[in-house]
């Protein structure tokens, strides 16, 4: 048995009888496929999200490799027929973007780590609405089915020349910009030619996926409001929860706008109500406003929970109380609110008025303030800490570097004059990959490595984990750093070919992409190996003090038999390493003393 005193039962509360037999945990509680597909357990729902989301990540990654391979040379690669090769490239970059954004990166941290960790961090048995949670998973599956259909149609068409009804493949770009997605209406009232693109199926997929995101957001807000344990006021919440709360605010306020945008486009495509198509009296730029009113905040749906993960990992693996708790918490909310006021910076070159441009530029710069506050506080947390180079920490440090690159180049793009120069070039591609891949993917991996022992009760191999993370870091910078240079020299994005003077950049970039693939496979094998054959994990392998480390690894079916009492989530000094048992042991007297003091005024 674990040598840890079970503070799960509450600091200062009597230890009660544990009703669960040893070895009974959420993984063994109920068997058979149905006990997974229709479970109401947030932990199992989180794991099923993980299976689906990581499978989507693989599909999106395959497209990334294909399009980088096509770009190795200026000429066509996958077909001697130029038209066929370029056409394939258009489909590949569209599906890479759409799958990565809608199926992978938006649900990655909230739906996987959030679902698994949030209730346990709150000392709760489950989220507030477990059925809605299951509904959210099924909405995700439904959305994935639509995308799968588009994908299958594309593959069947490319391989056998079959035409699935409703289109085969998707070549509008992940943004579904009108008039690419409007369909063609010929002069003289020619009816819609649905042609080769699966816009309708993909939009239906996006619509259903939006519901998945909304339901998760509703659940998280209600859960954080109503199910906090004794001792956890708003300012005793772990910062991951602040981040998820801010994310949920965006999910519920922005996603419905994407839903209505999709519905309007569907109404135009299917029944011919003119709204975005100029031929029918519509306005294509209105589509861009609607789309970015969702999709800019969506960038923060990706990055905010990533920042929450980093706060947890930085503090725990530096063995130091988080620095500037209030600032980090408030900056999450500030980013969530500001995220709604900057969408116009996607349209600096789309005929927006100079006044709007200036206002959106100013507001865009203002996002840098809370973002920088977070970075400074993370760095200060590490300062004079006892930094452990666990794989989670290596990923978190990579995040810090890459996010700084991504964030600072964002200022180049927020400035009107430089944006006009680099808009629509690889500079943009490099910038958002630094934020969405460099930052969010590394934070996601940091979170996976941090909580993997909690999820599966086993440790991952430190050496191979770190090797994978470092190879990925090198590959990432090889791929995308040169794109800043290529972009500032005028290489436009979304082109399948280019003048030969750009080839050296593309070659480096493509080699980098292959290195990234090696790093990611190393990480995948490392995680799988840890899950199946890793060393048994104790309840608290990192000596962290948030509540999920107070319950066994893996957690029992209903997490805590008795609601625990929360203390200071970053009171790491109360956990001391015991050489004799090779375990972290809680100094309960000290924890009680710390819990009795104000959380943020207590210095260590």
């Amino acid at each position, binding site marked *: 048995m674990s040598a840890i005193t079970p503070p799960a039962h509450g600091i200062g509360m009597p230890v009660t009888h544990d009703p669960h037999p040893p070895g009974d945990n959420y993984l063994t509680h109920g068997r058979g496929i149905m006990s997974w597909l229709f479970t109401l357990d947030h932990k199992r729902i989180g794991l099923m999200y993980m299976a689906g989301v990581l499978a989507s990540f693989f599909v999106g990654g395959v497209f990334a490799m294909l399009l980088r391979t096509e770009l190795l040379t200026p000429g066509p690669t996958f077909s001697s027929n130029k038209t066929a090769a370029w056409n394939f490239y258009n489909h590949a970059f569209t599906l890479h973007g759409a799958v990565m954004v809608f199926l992978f990166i938006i649900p990655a941290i909230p739906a996987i780590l959030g679902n698994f960790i949030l209730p346990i961090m709150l000392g709760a048995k489950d989220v507030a609405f477990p059925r809605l949670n299951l509904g959210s998973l099924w909405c995700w599956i439904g959305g994935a089915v639509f995308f799968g259909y588009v994908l299958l149609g594309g593959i069947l068409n490319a391989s056998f020349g079959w035409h699935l009804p409703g289109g085969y493949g998707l070549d509008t770009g992940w943004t579904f910009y009108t008039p690419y997605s409007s369909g063609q209406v010929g002069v003289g009232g020619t009816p819609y030619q649905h042609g080769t693109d699966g816009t309708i199926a993909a939009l239906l997929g996006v619509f259903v996926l939006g519901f998945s995101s909304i339901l998760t957001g509703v659940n998280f807000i*209600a859960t954080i409001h109503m199910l906090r344990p004794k001792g956890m006021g708003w300012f005793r919440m772990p910062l991951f929860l602040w981040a998820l709360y801010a994310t949920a605010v965006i999910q519920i306020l922005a996603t419905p706008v994407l839903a209505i945008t999709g519905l*309007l486009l569907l109404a135009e495509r299917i029944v011919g*109500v003119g709204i975005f198509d100029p*031929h029918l*009296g*519509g306005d294509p730029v*209105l589509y861009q406003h609607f789309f970015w009113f969702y999709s800019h905040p969506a960038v923060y749906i990706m990055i905010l929970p990533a920042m929450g993960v980093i706060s947890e990992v930085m503090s725990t693996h530096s063995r130091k109380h988080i620095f500037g708790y209030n600032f980090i918490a408030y900056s999450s909310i500030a980013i969530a609110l500001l995220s709604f006021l900057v969408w116009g910076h996607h349209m600096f070159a789309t*005929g927006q008025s100079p006044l709007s441009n200036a206002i959106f530029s100013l507001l865009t710069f203002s996002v840098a303030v809370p973002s920088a506050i977070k970075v400074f506080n993370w760095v200060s947390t590490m300062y004079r800490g006892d930094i452990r180079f666990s794989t989670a920490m290596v990923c978190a440090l990579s995040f810090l570097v890459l996010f700084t690159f991504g964030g600072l180049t964002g200022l180049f793009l927020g400035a009107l004059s430089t944006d006009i120069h680099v808009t629509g070039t690889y500079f943009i591609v490099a910038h958002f990959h630094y934020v969405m891949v460099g930052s969010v993917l590394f934070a996601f991996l940091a979170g996976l490595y941090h909580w993997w022992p909690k999820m599966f009760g086993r440790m991952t191999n430190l050496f191979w984990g770190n090797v994978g993370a470092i190879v990925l870091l090198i590959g990432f910078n090889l791929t995308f750093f040169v794109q800043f240079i290529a972009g500032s020299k005028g290489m436009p994005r979304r082109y399948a070919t280019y003048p030969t003077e750009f080839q050296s950049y593309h070659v480096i970039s493509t080699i980098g992409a292959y290195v990234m693939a090696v790093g990611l496979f190393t990480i995948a094998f490392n995680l799988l190996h840890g899950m199946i054959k890793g060393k048994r994990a104790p309840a608290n392998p990192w000596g962290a003090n948030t509540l999920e480390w107070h319950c066994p690894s893996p957690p029992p*079916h*209903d997490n805590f038999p008795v609601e625990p009492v929360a203390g200071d989530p970053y009171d790491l000094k109360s956990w001391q390493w015991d050489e004799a048992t090779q375990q972290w042991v809680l100094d309960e007297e000290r924890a009680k003393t710390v819990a009795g003091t104000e959380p943020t005024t207590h210095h260590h």
Partner: protein
Amino acid sequence: MSELVNKQQAAVALAGDTFSEQRDPHHHPPHVAHHFESAEQQFSSAKIGMWVFLATELLMFGGLFCAYSVYRHNHPEVFEFAHTFLDKNLGAINTVILIASSFTMALGVRMAQIGNRKGLTICLILTLLGGLGFMVIKSIEYRAKYEHHLWFGAGNQYSKLYNGPRPHEGPIQQHSDTPALTHGEREQAAVAHQMAATTLPTQTFGPAFIDPNAGTGDEAKIKPNQVMPVGLAPAIMAQQAAIEHGGFKDAAGHTDSHHKIAFEDLPQSEKDRVATFFNIYFLMTGLHGLHVLIGMGLITWVMIRGMAGAFGPLYYTPVDLVGLYWHLVDLIWIFLFPLLYLIH
């Protein structure tokens, strides 16, 4: 009280809402899920969840209201003219019906709270009838729009999407559209006429009339093709004046004192512009109508559970939440009615 609890247990079991998983029999009432401490906590959670969901609904309709503002700002005269094809009276009756149904819904929540099963059923039936009445009137309006070719898409013979043979133009068309002129020339001529007629500023017709930023770096990249005022073309104005002063003269010179300008009478270019308004109209009222139908479904579900005695002072959450939803649907209509029917 204990009898009430028993009834609730029976009703909950009947509705299949058993929370069988991990129910703690020691202190949890049957309708409290295992992860909640108390009925109050569960009720508050449900309320928060519902309000948050209503916020998403508002944002979703917000997109449509935003589209409405954009198009009305771009084509104020289109909206002012086109809305006259809507029936204000039917819209007003529908508004009254929905407000009344909101009242019966609120009363229904009260009935559930005091455990008056019969009262709850009556209130919910009245609410349902309100929803039904609204939808019937809405469908009468839609049908009229369909018959007058104000419908959207390929089903409308005046739409650009229509595939069949072109219908003949109305009488006013013959007055205002000189066949010798091309479409563009007609538009220019009409605008020039109107400029002269309204003695507006000395601005001459040209690109700057369409886009004030024309010729500068800020010139719009995508030009709307419908920038001309609608329903105000000189020939139509003359006809309207003729109606007001005794009678409408058609192409053959016959007078009809009861004739009003119908959609069919408009020249094709103005039909297209009127369609801009009706696109927004159908999108807004269509999505709202869909919400009314969903609300009616939810009320039916609550009514069936209520008739089985599921609700009482200790547990009336579903009635309360469905009520909130119904009020939101009502509220959205209260904004839609003046925005679409009462434009000045």
